[in-house]
């Protein structure tokens, strides 16, 4: 029987995921800045209902970008925390193998072999010679060593299983929840759905053009009628008792007349309406956005908006300061700062604030650093200190 201490995974590889997510967060932040710049430029360069609609859309896009930015930040933190856990547990496994070797157990690569069973040593006869007594003592020593090895084996097996349990529990308690959060509907998805919706853009675009064209045609007809009555030789037509003739209306609508100009404009609008009908998803912002300006912003179309912005700027700044200060790279400093932070948190009674302000991966580094130091240095201090430890960490 043997036990394999190999824990799959490459922490460095997982850290590349965290690095990439941090790059993504930065890119999203810069993208949001660009959208804000464009939106702000709109206020001086563009006026009208289309400008209003664009402004609202840009606001929605900014919020959607900020939301994804927050998610990328959370994802980077959880990825880095997982990389740390993986590394620490692999280091624990290496420690278990060292302990096994030190106890005399056979270790092949990552596999620890179970020792042989302790052999029974018969009782020494009453008339045993000194040589027989010495031989029995040697057998007893061998048996005692075998018992110690078996005790060490049982101990190391428990520790290896405990380490496997530890990483499994961490994954279950952290990554499962993080995955659920990452898969929640986003504002961006709602915006994209609205952007692809023909009801939102194309049809309204057509209607706006057609409606305006119809109004112009009616206005042209009125103008032509007035002109035709003025020009008519028929008193009844001039008095408005009967409608002007078709030829009279045609003459009154010739190019250059007011009615003619109105009809030209109406024809132009109808042409754009036809373009839109055959234009597929390429739609005029000005007209498509008109509909949005009349109602809810696109992000509200068919979407339940979940939550607000996660975290606070102060948290990011505090975490960055810790990282920048080299907290993560130097265990001794981890312990020093960690103790100060935890001590302060306990003293001030702001544990929840601590959790909010300091990212999980940094908190866990601090905890791990304190635990390592505790195990290697503070154990001899005694139960009084141990009690204090448990009062903080349970």
């Amino acid at each position, binding site marked *: 029987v043997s036990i394999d201490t190999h824990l799959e995974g490459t922490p460095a590889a997982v850290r590349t995921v965290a690095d990439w997510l941090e790059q993504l967060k930065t890119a999203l932040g810069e993208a949001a800045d660009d959208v804000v710049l*464009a939106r702000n430029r709109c206020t001086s360069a*563009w006026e009208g209902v289309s400008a209003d609609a664009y402004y609202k859309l840009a606001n929605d896009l900014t919020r959607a970008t900020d939301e994804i930015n927050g998610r990328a930040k959370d994802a980077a933190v*959880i990825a880095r925390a997982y990389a740390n856990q993986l590394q620490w547990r692999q280091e624990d496994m290496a420690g278990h193998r060292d302990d096994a070797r030190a106890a005399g157990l056979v270790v092949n690569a990552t596999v620890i072999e179970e020792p042989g069973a302790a052999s029974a040593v018969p009782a020494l006869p009453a008339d045993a010679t000194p040589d027989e007594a010495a031989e029995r003592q040697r057998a007893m020593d061998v048996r005692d060593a075998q018992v110690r090895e078996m005790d060490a084996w049982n101990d190391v097996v428990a520790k290896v299983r405990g380490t496997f349990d530890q990483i499994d529990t961490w994954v279950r308690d952290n*990554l499962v929840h993080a*995955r659920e959060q990452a898969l929640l509907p986003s504002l*961006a998805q709602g915006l*994209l759905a609205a952007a692809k919706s023909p009801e939102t853009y194309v049809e309204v675009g057509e209607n706006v053009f057609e409606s305006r064209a119809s109004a112009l045609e009616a206005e042209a007809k009125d103008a032509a009628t007035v002109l035709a009555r003025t020009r008519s030789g028929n008193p009844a037509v001039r008095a408005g008792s009967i409608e002007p003739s078709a030829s009279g209306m045609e003459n009154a609508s010739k190019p250059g007349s007011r009615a003619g100009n109105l009809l030209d404009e109406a024809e132009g609008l109808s042409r754009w309406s036809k373009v839109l009908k055959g234009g597929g998803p390429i739609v005029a912002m000005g007209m498509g956005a008109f509909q949005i300006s009349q109602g809810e912003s696109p992000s509200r179309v068919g979407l339940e908006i979940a939550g607000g912005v996660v975290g606070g700027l102060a948290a990011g700044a505090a975490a960055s300061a810790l990282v920048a200060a080299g907290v993560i790279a130097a265990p001794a400093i981890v312990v020093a700062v960690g103790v100060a932070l935890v001590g302060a948190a306990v003293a001030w009674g702001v544990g929840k604030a601590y959790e909010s302000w300091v990212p999980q991966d940094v908190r866990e580094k601090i905890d791990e650093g304190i635990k390592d130091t505790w195990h290697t240095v503070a154990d001899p201090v005694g139960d009084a200190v141990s009690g204090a430890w448990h009062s903080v960490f349970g």
Partner: protein
Amino acid sequence: VSGFRIEVEAAKAMATLHDEAAGLITDLGPSEPSGLDGGVGWPYLLDILSASSVDAGTIAQLNTSVASRVRTAVDLVTGYDAAAADTFRELEKGMP
């Protein structure tokens, strides 16, 4: 439309900003990690990574779409301007 005004060059610059926003995100696409030895938590992390990528890609797509719509709006406005100019030119032709 009453109160309508648009500075064409400024609107084009706005469209460019949206294009740049999209590019900032899509430029990261080729370097997205994949096929890593991530251990027991990798399936979850992969889903988280994928969700972030898809959401970010959606933001890029939206910016590209908005840039296109802004440019279309500019095209429409300039198109109307040209059409209006034609109307006056036609009228001018009819004058003695």
